[in-house]
């Protein structure tokens, strides 16, 4: 390999690809060639860096200078400044949220420097399509060691010591699960990786497969060794074509390199992996539904027991873990369970990747030690709530989770603490809401999701979620009575207790937790027929403040219903409330703040 002076890491995660990083790469390569720098500066396309709202993103090593929102047109100037003149190109740097100062390097950027990367350590650093880069960073060493020098018992012992818990939602101790599968009677066993990632806000699994697929393959092979399985399946949703492509390529490369296939490391242990592409129903992420889907049946959950560890794929003992769970395995094997257990809290070990989204300045993937407070994530890493609005609540765990109000901002983000306030870590979705969010509307949004995603097998979920949705809808329309609130609570409890699988059992959580912290807001909708956040269309009114109205007529021209008319003999406009459909266009278009929402 020639020695390069610099390496340009170009993020090619899903987010950056969609905002145009590939043309930037072409421009960069062309420009480097034109300036005769092609031998000195190397361009590497990596997996997701995490700061998705800033893409396309470039990081230039060895200085770790972090450039954001780079367009192909910026490239000649950037090459000129950075590589020829040796200066940082300031126009493309990030600005600090607090101080407005420019941030030159990744290290200085709070979004990164508060994170601890284990799962994502290679994402954004290596070229995921090149197995050599993975191997160069110690890849497949753990597998080789385990096969040649260790026993399955040793692996499971380390895993138990690490305290790693499943990252797919339920948080079941991984070591215990591996042990179950190892001890389950049966000749044939399987290892399955759950990459269905149905939680609409989460994308860490996708990022790992896109950015560092070999880490998952290696972990699955180690799992195969520990559980004495010789076949693995990765179940990915079809909406993740890039993850599928890169994982396929990685499997191919690993087979060619002898890391997958027969007699690995000249031992008697054989292990191979295939990909199964799922149609992308949320419920297919539930383990029994997922297994049915791999078997070619309808992806519908079944009651447990039997658990997959005893009777899974084709009735055989099956180990099923989430992508992020597998992504922790190699570091645990190489650095030891005790090392991993030193990170995090007493009962929640290691790190967790959260997908930060919503009303927050920096969105994207953040990996932090378990127990990091919500405040640190929101303010230090996330840069706080933009536009001078106030933090209202954070929704964790997506549609199965709950909300955490401002009063609990200092809560440590770990399994136990979140459970205590009625939420869950779940898959790691973290949506920040500000004062403009109506909590009833938020609950209704999640309930609609669950209603659509219910597989329809059991009545509590199939009919119950629909009736819950109906009650919430009534509340947001100002048509509910106080008895409806009681019925809602009763029904939520029933659906939680009676449903067959986790989808139904957790579907009421967003309602129950918003009721717990924002009951007054529900009551305002019901008793006062008012939506305090001014979100629910039926409960708000638009009117024009005549003092502020300049008579520009913009609102009247944009109103789809033609309900805005000119007041006779005056240069003022007025809205006919009877015909207003509350679309809010006038509010959005008025440049003088004359349209008032109340």
């Amino acid at each position, binding site marked *: 390999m020639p020695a390069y002076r610099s390496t340009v890491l170009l993020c090619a995660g899903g987010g950056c690809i969609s905002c145009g990083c590939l043309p930037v790469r072409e421009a960069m390569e062309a420009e480097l060639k034109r300036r005769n720098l092609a031998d000195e500066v190397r361009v590497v396309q990596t997996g997701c860096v995490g700061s998705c709202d800033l893409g396309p993103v470039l990081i230039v090593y060895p200085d770790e200078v972090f450039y954001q929102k780079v367009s192909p047109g910026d490239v000649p100037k950037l090459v000129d400044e950075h590589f020829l003149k040796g200066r940082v190109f300031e126009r493309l740097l990030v600005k600090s949220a607090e101080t407005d100062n420019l941030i030159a390097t990744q290290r200085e950027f709070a979004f990164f420097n508060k994170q601890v990367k284990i799962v994502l350590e290679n994402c954004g650093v290596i070229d995921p399509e090149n197995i050599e880069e993975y191997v160069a960073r110690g890849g497949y060493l753990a597998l080789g060691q385990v096969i040649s020098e260790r026993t399955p018992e040793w692996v499971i012992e380390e895993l138990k010591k690490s305290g790693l818990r499943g990252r797919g939602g339920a948080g079941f101790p991984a070591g215990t699960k591996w042990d179950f599968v190892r001890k389950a009677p049966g000749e044939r066993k399987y290892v399955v990786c759950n990459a269905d990632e149905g939680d609409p806000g989460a994308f860490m699994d996708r990022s790992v497969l896109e950015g560092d697929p070999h880490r998952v393959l290696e972990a699955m092979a180690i799992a195969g060794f520990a559980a004495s399985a010789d076949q693995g399946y990765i179940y990915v949703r079809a909406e993740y074509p890039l993850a599928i492509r890169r994982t396929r390529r990685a499997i191919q490369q690993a087979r060619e390199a002898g890391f997958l296939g027969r007699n690995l490391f000249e031992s008697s242990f054989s292990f191979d992996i295939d990909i199964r592409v799922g149609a992308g129903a949320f419920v297919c992420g539930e383990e029994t539904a997922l297994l049915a889907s791999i078997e070619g049946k309808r992806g519908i959950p079944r009651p447990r027991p039997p658990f997959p560890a005893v009777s899974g794929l084709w009735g055989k003992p099956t180990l099923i873990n989430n992508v992020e769970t597998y992504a922790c395995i190699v570091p645990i094997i190489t650095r030891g369970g005790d090392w991993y257990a030193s990170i995090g809290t007493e009962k929640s070990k290691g790190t967790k990747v959260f997908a930060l989204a919503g009303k927050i300045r920096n969105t994207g993937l953040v990996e932090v030690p378990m127990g990091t407070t919500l405040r640190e994530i929101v303010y230090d890493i996330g840069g706080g709530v933009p536009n001078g609005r106030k933090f209202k609540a954070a929704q964790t765990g997506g549609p199965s989770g709950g909300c955490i109000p401002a009063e609990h901002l200092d809560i440590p983000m770990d399994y136990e603490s979140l459970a205590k306030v009625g939420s869950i870590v779940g898959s790691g979705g973290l949506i920040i809401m500000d004062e403009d969010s109506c909590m009833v509307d938020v609950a209704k949004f999640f309930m609609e999701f669950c209603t659509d995603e219910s597989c*329809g097998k059991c009545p509590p979920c199939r009919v119950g979620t629909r009736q819950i949705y109906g009650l919430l809808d009534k509340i947001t329309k100002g048509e509910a009575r106080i008895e409806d609130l009681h019925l809602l609570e009763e029904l939520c409890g029933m659906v939680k207790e*009676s449903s067959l699988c986790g989808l139904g059992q957790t579907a009421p959580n967003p309602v129950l937790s918003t009721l717990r912290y924002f009951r007054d807001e529900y009551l305002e909708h019901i008793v006062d027929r008012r939506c305090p956040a001014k979100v629910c269309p039926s409960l708000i009114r638009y009117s024009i403040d005549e003092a502020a109205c300049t008579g520009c007529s913009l609102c009247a021209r944009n109103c789809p219903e033609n309900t805005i008319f000119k007041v006779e003999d005056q240069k003022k406009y007025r809205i006919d409330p009877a015909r207003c459909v509350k679309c809010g266009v006038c509010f959005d278009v008025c440049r003088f703040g004359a349209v008032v929402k109340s």
Partner: protein
Amino acid sequence: MSEISLTINGKQVKGERGDTILKVCERSDIYVPTLCHYGGVHEVGTCRMCVVEVQGGRALTTACTTPAEDGMIVKTESDAIQSLRRATLELLFSERNHYCMFCEASGDCELQALAYRHGMDSVRYPNLYPKMELDTSHPYLALDQNRCVLCRRCVRVCAELVGAHSLGMRERGIETLLAADGGEPLSASSCVSCGACVQVCPTGALFDRRSAYRGREKDCTTVKSSCPECALGCAVELVARSGQVLRVEGDVESPENGGLLCRRGRYESLNGHRERVLQPLVRKGGELASASWDEALAALRAGIEAAAAAGGAGAVAAVASARASNEALAALRGYFQQKLDSPNVGAIGAAASPDGYPAATLQDIRQADLIILAGEDAGANHQVVEFAVSQAVEQHGAALIVVGSAARRLQKQACVVVPAGSDEVARALATLTAAGSESLKRIACAERAVFVVGAPVTAVPQALAAAAQSARDGWPRVLALAPKGNSRGAAQAGLNGGASVAKGVKAAFIMAGDDTEMLDRFLPQRDEIGFLAVQASYRSPLVEMADVVLPAPVWTEKAGTMVNAQGREVSLRPAVAPPAGVRDEADVLAALSQ
């Protein structure tokens, strides 16, 4: 099997390892409400009615899917459990159209009964009432999605017991819908019209078209009888009201067919639109005319005695179909063999069982690990056998070898198929199981080998013997199928099956003349036979050519016994009285003998 003991509702009860909690409750007569549970098919735990509390468990669990464990402490009733069950019912009632007063099933509906039992007297949620289709395309059964609770009993029964796999679910969530072959009208689907789904549906969603709205079960009488349509003699229950048979149901208590029937037994025998013979007929001046029983019997006696007088006893023949009951056949022999001394008394389709093998029951077939089906189209002729074979193969992993060209559906499930025409089947079987062959080894290794064979194989005993010799002691069990409902009984009565009408016969009496084989046999010979008397239930070309016609009851109107293919005696019992002018076949002949 080892015994386990549990504490349920504070009481010590016993169960067996492998039982579910529900099974233990059933054994000890502890009521647990269920809706989706159906004995014999796998549990799905969807309806959530059987939720119970297990001490130390994380949450409530369904009794039907949770294995019972020794020492378990279970509570099946509590206020909380009760209210969850009521809430589930309330949701089901709010989902689709359950206005019972317009429903076929009202009074016999399990959902309705559960609602009463749990005191669910109002529904506090708006009725969702999606517009759902009614599938009335099928001649015998109908599907009203508006009453379906998506319990999937029908789906499981159709797949696991019948092996047809015609039903399934489509769409998701609240849009979930029962569908035949993914959305075909039932009539255009792969449904084999066995009616099992209708029988197990707990609500008014799948219903029998003929008996719809004609009475609740408590208004009807139910009589256990046996289907005479083929040599299996499946156990049935005849449901009747006001002198009419409304429907035929499979007898779920039968260890043999266990409630399953085929299209022929459940539907076709009731739904014929043929004209009944309601009075004796006598040919007068070339035309058949109504007559009194006395007149008809006198004409019969006269015709027969004239032939005997002219040509001796050999000029008289009596032929029955082997679907006639033992009692009717005995009466036939009583008059013609014993009284008139005719040498020409026979039963078409009489067939003895092959000697030397224990008869295979349907139970044996379902539990077999190797099935050899040779020379028999079970799908067409004895469909309930086909269901049992499918069940063994698909649900329990039995190996199936098919010899012969028939049995199309089963060919798909077979591991070996040797096509052969019916005259080559015996030879093909012999070749397949020749000394040293793979198949012979297979038979030797099998723990429970069962042969299901048709006439072409029973006709060549050596072929069967060669194939069977390697099997372990007491095996193979053989189900030799026979052409008619009472083939075995007829053979045991000494009647031979070949009885074509001998040369010189001048008068013939035909019993059970509705059998089409009778027709085929007598049509060409009609002119040689001077006098023809027919006992039949329906008008037919054979009846039209007779000189005397004696109306006979149909099977749902008569008593008697038959011997089925396995050599087991099965009974016919009347569910309704025959029409006024119709007399029992045996009684009529007994009267003649006097």
